[in-house]
């Protein structure tokens, strides 16, 4: 961790937080409901979102205490832009899959969760791409 930039450390923390929190959510919630997403399910989802934000904020604050003066330079911005471009294609493809799910699966539950899975996968792929680019140098 010593040779990593603030950006890389933030990416690692966000990646672990997303995998951990959404992993918990899908393990606990996904098999339990079918048909429609009701108000209690939505509140449960927001609880996990709150947990995700909390984990990321605690992690980022912890590393910011040490690296608070570090800037974001042109290479880091380019790495982020490259990863965002690929993620955008993935997101658009995932939305098409969600539309197909909405057409053929009754209720809104699987449609909503296809959207969330697509969002999570897009985010994970984006962060992994950035981490690989940092490892290669660009």
């Amino acid at each position, binding site marked *: 961790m010593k*040779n990593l*930039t603030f950006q890389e450390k933030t990416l690692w923390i966000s990646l672990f937080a997303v995998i951990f929190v959404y992993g918990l959510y899908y393990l606990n919630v996904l098999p339990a409901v079918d048909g429609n997403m009701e108000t209690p399910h939505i509140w449960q989802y927001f609880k996990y979102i709150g947990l995700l934000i909390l984990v990321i904020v605690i992690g980022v604050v912890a590393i910011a205490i040490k690296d608070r003066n*570090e*800037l974001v*330079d*042109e*290479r*880091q911005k*380019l790495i982020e832009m490259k990863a965002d471009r690929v993620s955008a294609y993935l997101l658009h493809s995932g939305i098409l899959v969600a539309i197909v799910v909405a057409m053929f699966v009754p209720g809104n539950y699987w449609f909503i969760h296809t959207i969330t899975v697509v969002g999570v996968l897009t985010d994970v792929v984006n962060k992994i791409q950035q981490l690989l680019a*940092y490892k*290669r*140098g*660009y």
Partner: protein
Amino acid sequence: MGKSPNISNQIRSLRFHHEEMTQQQLADLVGVTRQTINAIEHNKYSPSLEVAFKIAVAFNKPLTEVFQYEAH
């Protein structure tokens, strides 16, 4: 910007001839991270013209003495 196999540089030897200037010291002068200086030095990343000029200014050398381009 990005990665170009045709661009090489003399940053390592220039740092050596400037009292073994560290990558962090150069990074602070140029306004980038130490890791970006490392990536430039090892030809993994070609900087923008602005950063290239800032590096040349830091060593008080013309740009062409710091960076070389070979057309194949």
